[in-house]
């Protein structure tokens, strides 16, 4: 199961080597945001929030495991 999962994951990653087709008609996009490079700030914020939540979940998981061990 684990191996299949990792294999699938790597298969996804390989796709990144391809593509980059030219874009069609220019429609207004948030290019300014991108060119200024500040979008990374947003990604950083989102990632911090999500990693924080994940750590929080892991710590709850750990505390539960401890409780379960004590009560068995």
């Amino acid at each position, binding site marked *: 199961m684990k191996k299949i999962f990792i294999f699938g994951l790597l298969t996804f990653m390989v*796709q990144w080597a391809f593509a980059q087709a030219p874009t*069609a008609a220019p429609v207004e996009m948030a290019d300014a945001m991108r060119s200024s490079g500040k979008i990374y700030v947003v990604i950083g914020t989102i990632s911090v929030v999500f990693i924080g939540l994940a750590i929080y979940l*892991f710590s709850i998981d750990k505390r539960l495991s401890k409780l379960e061990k004590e009560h068995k």
Partner: protein
Amino acid sequence: MNIKSNWWKITGVILVLFSLYQGLMGRVPVLPILHETIRNIYYHVPMWFAMVVLFVFNAIYSIKYLSSGNEHHDNVAVEAANVGLFLGVLGLITGMLWAKFTWGEAWSNDPKQNSAAIGMLVYLAYFVLRGSLDEAQKRAKISAVYSVFAFPVMIVLLFILPRLTDSLHPGNGGNPGFNKYDMDNQMRMVFYPAVIGWILIGVWVMQLRVRLLEITNQILEN
């Protein structure tokens, strides 16, 4: 942290993190009206996928409970419905925000919006039903039977009825499936990891809630 039994939790976190980064930085097709909001597909749609998976858990464990009478199966069923409902509410709110700026109105009585809301109510009723029964075994049994009926209703509401009529949602109004999504192959490589990641996280939270419920019951009994 036992990697052997918890690898799927870590995988879920990594997949979602990947989708948060690549979802914002990846190239998306340039589409009128949608513009950059097409990226919402990485964050809004996985909520619904995860909700459906949790409701599948609810249905399976309800059937399991009916055949076994094992309290654990009932616990899994309740918490699956609980987390599923929560994810559904997140899906509704994010969908309304997205709709406001692309369809013009937060709630345009789109068939899929309406039936998603009705589907939520069906599962809300599950909790009302549970809350109204005092005896634990009776509660578990009756709500399990209710679940078995609620699940196909939810599937019909979300995946069949909207397709019989015109809907603002892509992939509805006759043409089912992903091909109607305005998604190219590069987007799929972000979309599918996001879906799998959020499903894993949803199941993880459900598992935590089940364990919390059971340890609480155990402590209260002693």
